[in-house]
């Protein structure tokens, strides 16, 4: 008999695996949608990693396959989407796809990880030219006899330091002249850390410290070939 106790247990386990892996939905999608459509559904068109936009540019617009992708969201570089095995690591690129481009300059909250304020070299500094200023907002003043000092360090070397005494405002701007060293081959070597010391103030380091950054790419310096929301395909003028 096909439906004996043993077979029922095996069937139940198979059924559980089918449900667990979304088998029926997945099989339907594979039959009804193309690989490209599924790719866009998973990665987004111009949102998230913007793989859909990259595919669109690659297949419909671009006349060259020497393109560099810059994603302004946190995440790994999207070079894999346009990677050309014929290029050498020393080759220069004139064409760029920008995903989630936030404008010429933008605010970014500074990550507070392991009791340290870190400006992530790998995912932030590679995208910017300079830091205009550090903004500390929503400061809770407990006493007028107070101070606030910030120190910007690159691998323990102090590159910027400033102190304010007797603060009365809830928001303080520290203007910096910090510029990313574009000659540095490996941005991962940069460990930009922000130290914030204060007295008689209350600051939420998790939320209230951000940086105004100048983007590496200024659209005015490029020719825009295609634009969709905040995704761009640009080339050097």
């Amino acid at each position: 008999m096909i439906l004996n106790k043993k077979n029922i247990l095996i069937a139940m386990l198979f059924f559980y695996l089918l449900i667990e892996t979304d088998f029926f939905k997945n099989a339907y999608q594979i039959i009804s949608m193309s690989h490209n459509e599924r790719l866009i559904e998973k990665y987004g068109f111009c949102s998230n990693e913007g793989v859909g936009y990259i595919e669109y540019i690659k297949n419909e617009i671009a006349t060259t396959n020497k393109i560099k992708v810059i994603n302004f969201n946190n995440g790994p570089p999207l070079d894999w989407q346009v990677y050309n095995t014929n290029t050498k690591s020393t080759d220069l690129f004139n064409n760029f796809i920008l995903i989630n481009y936030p404008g010429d300059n933008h605010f970014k909250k500074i990550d507070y990880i392991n009791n340290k304020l870190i400006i992530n070299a790998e995912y932030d500094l590679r995208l910017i030219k300079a830091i205009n200023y550090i903004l500390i907002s929503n400061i809770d003043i407990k006493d007028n006899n107070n101070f606030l000092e910030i120190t910007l360090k690159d691998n323990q070397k102090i590159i910027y330091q400033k102190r304010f005494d007797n603060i009365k405002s809830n928001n303080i701007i520290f203007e910096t002249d910090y510029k990313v060293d574009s000659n540095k081959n490996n941005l991962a070597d940069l460990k930009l850390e922000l130290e914030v010391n204060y007295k008689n103030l209350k600051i939420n380091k998790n939320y209230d410290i951000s940086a105004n950054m100048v983007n590496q790419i200024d659209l005015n310096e490029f020719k825009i070939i295609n634009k969709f929301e905040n995704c761009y395909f640009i080339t050097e003028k």
Partner: protein
Amino acid sequence: MIELIQIFLLYIIFSVTLFVPVNVFGHSLKKYKVDSLQISTINLIINLNLLLFISLLNYSIDIYQGYLVAFYLIIFLITYHKSLSNFYKNYFQYRYVFIIFLILAINVASELKLGWDAQFFYYIKSLYFFEGKTILNLNDFVSNKYHPHFGSYLWGFFRNLSMNDIEYTGRLFYVYIFCISIFYLTSKEKNNYLNIVIYLIIIIATYQYKYFSGLQDILLFSILVIISKYIHNYTVSKEKIYLFLILLCCNLMLWIKSEGLVYSLILILIINFLFKEKLKTKILITTIFLISYLFKKYIYMYYGFNEVAQETYSLEYIYNLNFEIIFYKLKHITSWLIYYSLNNIIITLGAVFIMIGIAKKYRSNYENIIRLHLFLTIGFIYSAYIFRDHDVIVALRVTMERLLMSSSGFYLYYILIKLENIFKKNNTLA
């Protein structure tokens, strides 16, 4: 629909790696008391080593792939033309592997998203092989230095065999090796029904899409699963063929991921300290391993690869470590290790059975091997994070789960044996 047909066809292509060059029904290996499924895994290991060797040559896949497929087809026909009915019968025992492969392959084909490291390294490397470049051209890829190439080569090689060149088709070979390794682990000549139930339970307990998102850890896991059964078989039969097979597996791990070197070293240490073999044999095993390691070094030098695989390790950092930093790291490593171990059912069960074994003073050779392996693996995990010049918490969060997952493959067979013993005892009592 084409993609589904393609998945089916790829399964057939992958299956060939199990049936040639050694005839699974032949008598050539029967003197070593190995069954047909064991010969299949031997074929798999041999074929992977052969592919590894070919990948090291400066020839494009496009040049030799057609010849290789034709060669395998001819070998297959020569080997099995007289025993086709036997072959079908044998092939039928893999029906559950096929069903599981199909289910998991459809999951991979639908999920599609590549893991972080896969986007960074492995996919791009596979692209080189897929687009007809060779190992030499990997020098053009800036991040080539971080990990060996073999997993990416397999990805590119099998993608090149697919009809529509879709990226995930190459990754399906990882799914296949995973399915086969677990199947091999759970297979026994008797008690067929229970084996299938256990097979399904292990697949359910261990499968997660993220492990198949182009990351290489699942390959290490699968190879360690196979090794764990070889080691057990060796302790039972003392057949030297298993030593040779373990060496072949170690050779594969060396070329898959940096951790592969450590896993291999641990196995070589175990062979030297706990295997009851003549000194001459142990020296031979160690020498062969050293030669394969030096061969890798030579290949890296020959192709001009940067040998500094991990920039986050430096003697300067190790010299400057002080007690405060070590204590800070130890504290975090321990807490994350406990957390991730508890989330990994294989590690948890394995640790429980090992502790029971210690408490009950079990002293079998196999038990000692498992204990030493766990001890050395934990030692490796601690030293890897202590000596690494990187934010320890970020490193632990990003890598420890995968590290435990890949190493857990070694304990799976041990757990099965322990569970089997418990069931046997209960049945006897009943």
